[in-house]
């Protein structure tokens, strides 16, 4: 989590929706202003195709990325040198004064679709420079667009795609678009693709699904290293790198085949360490899933575990001692997955009692044995072996896990009446676009 904070302060943009504009054009140029703007659009598109970033052109004075064609010494520490030599430069996101500034030498013969040996291909150089604007340094790889030497045109802007090295490098900073989109997950993902929705399935309307920045959470689970947050009939999914795969939640019953569509909420979910089955608990019933398909014969009553008929609040399977702990109110049960039996003496008064408000909403054991406790819109972290409360908690689930960087509604400390959805839903379209003129770039 901390590294995320550091990342945003250093090498990468924290926002995903980045504005750009061409601030000045070369005095004499072969290329028209429209062509220059279109080429910039496509050069940025190259990077947005590999990441969750989106770029939009603005007409007003303020833009995150501003492109200028400048001459010789232009007072930024990197004077140009006339035709040839230095052709362009751009500054990293961490540069306090110059982040987003992209400068092209106006003395170059900027070309588009010209013979390789004539002029300097503007699209190729622009892709390179925008790589710097997003945080990439020069690369020694001969195939990389981030190689410092101009190597001629890179082909048709409409067809151009990043080399693998460059994809890896930029996704290290921003994650990949596939994992952050609601499009089909990559075939390499551990859990198979969700089935297509049956025709009678209720369509997803934006006013229906919960807002991740203001909701409490019903259940949390780490499954195959990915973290799932369940709320009502939906869930959000975070990648291994803890990047939210989509701002919009997915319908649980559409992904977890066999989970009833009518299920209002899930009490707890965990991945069983013995056979990596995934167990869902809701009220008096539980389901066992192999990957994301339910096994034959489920649901079954939770009394199979020796649990009370009413079900549980929370559970987590602890790799540390390979037991699963169930919680209900102020009681806890410890269940030995290997023998399939509840431990002698269960239930006991929960050890959490003194440290945390009970009942909790859910608990999660992290990959290196730490345990997180979730209640309402806050969470606590327990030390690995001692399960003692770590200092600095509770913290906000929305801010630390679900990518809500803005003001949280309502503020965590002051419980207020739930605000209207309109107020809750942040405006993802970015700043108001002041349009001077529209050009259709494709």
């Amino acid at each position, binding site marked *: 989590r901390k590294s995320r904070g550091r990342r945003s302060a250093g090498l990468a943009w924290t926002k995903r929706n980045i504005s750009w504009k061409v601030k000045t054009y070369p005095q004499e140029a072969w290329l028209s202003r429209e062509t220059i703007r279109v080429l910039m659009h496509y050069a940025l598109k190259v990077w947005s195709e590999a990441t969750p970033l989106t770029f939009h052109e603005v007409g007003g004075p303020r833009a995150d990325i501003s492109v200028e064609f400048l001459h010789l010494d232009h007072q930024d520490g990197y004077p140009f040198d006339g035709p040839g030599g230095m*052709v*362009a*430069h*751009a500054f990293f996101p961490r540069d306090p004064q110059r982040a987003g500034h992209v400068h092209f030498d106006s003395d*170059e013969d900027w070309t588009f679709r010209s013979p390789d040996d004539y002029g300097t291909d503007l699209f190729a150089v622009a892709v390179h420079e925008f790589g710097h604007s997003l945080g990439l340094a020069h690369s*020694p790889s001969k195939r990389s667009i981030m190689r*410092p030497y101009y190597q001629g045109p890179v082909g048709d802007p409409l067809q151009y795609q990043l080399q693998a090295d460059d994809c890896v490098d930029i996704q290290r900073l921003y994650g990949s678009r596939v994992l952050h989109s609601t499009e089909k997950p990559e075939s390499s993902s551990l859990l198979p693709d969700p089935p297509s929705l049956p025709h009678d399935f209720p369509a997803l309307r934006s006013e229906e699904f919960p807002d991740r920045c203001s909701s409490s959470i019903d259940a949390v689970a780490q499954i195959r290293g990915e973290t799932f947050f369940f709320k009502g009939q939906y869930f959000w999914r975070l990648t291994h790198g803890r990047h939210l795969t989509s701002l919009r939640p997915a319908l649980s019953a559409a992904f977890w085949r066999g989970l009833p569509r009518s299920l209002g909420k899930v009490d707890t979910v965990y991945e069983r360490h013995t056979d990596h089955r995934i167990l869902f608990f809701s009220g008096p019933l539980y389901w066992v899933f192999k990957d994301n398909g339910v096994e034959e014969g489920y649901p079954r009553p939770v009394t199979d575990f020796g649990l009370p008929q009413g079900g549980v609040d929370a559970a987590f399977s602890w790799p540390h001692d390979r037991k699963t702990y169930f919680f209900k109110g102020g009681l806890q049960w410890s269940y030995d997955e290997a023998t399939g039996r509840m431990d002698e003496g269960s239930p006991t008064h929960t050890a959490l009692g003194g440290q945390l408000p009970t009942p909790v909403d859910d608990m999660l054991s992290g990959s290196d044995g730490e345990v997180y406790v979730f209640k309402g819109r806050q969470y606590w972290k327990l030390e690995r072996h001692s399960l003692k409360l770590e200092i600095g908690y509770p913290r906000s689930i929305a801010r630390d896990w679900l990518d809500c960087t803005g003001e949280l509604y309502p503020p965590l400390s002051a419980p207020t009446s739930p605000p209207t959805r309109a107020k809750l839903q942040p405006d993802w379209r970015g700043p108001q676009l002041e349009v001077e003129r529209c050009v259709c770039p494709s």
Partner: protein
Amino acid sequence: RSVPTPADESGEVVAWLMQYGYLPPADPITGQLQTWEAVTSAIRVMQRFAGIPETGIPDDATLGLIRMPRCSLPDVLPEKLPERKNGRLWRKR
């Protein structure tokens, strides 16, 4: 004293190596010339980064790259310059 770099012969190379981060800028206080050893190892680093034979001398392949149009950002990003105590350069091991 180390042999000073024959500036007339390779001023362009030294300037280029400093421009792109392979050599620290010349010391403005002492005006100390870049030693040839430093230039040689800087050329090797540049040749390695460019994927050409590491000869340590400004041969044709190296000069060809040095004169090639390119992005003006350094290849070697400025790190924390070595600390300076009582006038001597202390390099971290």
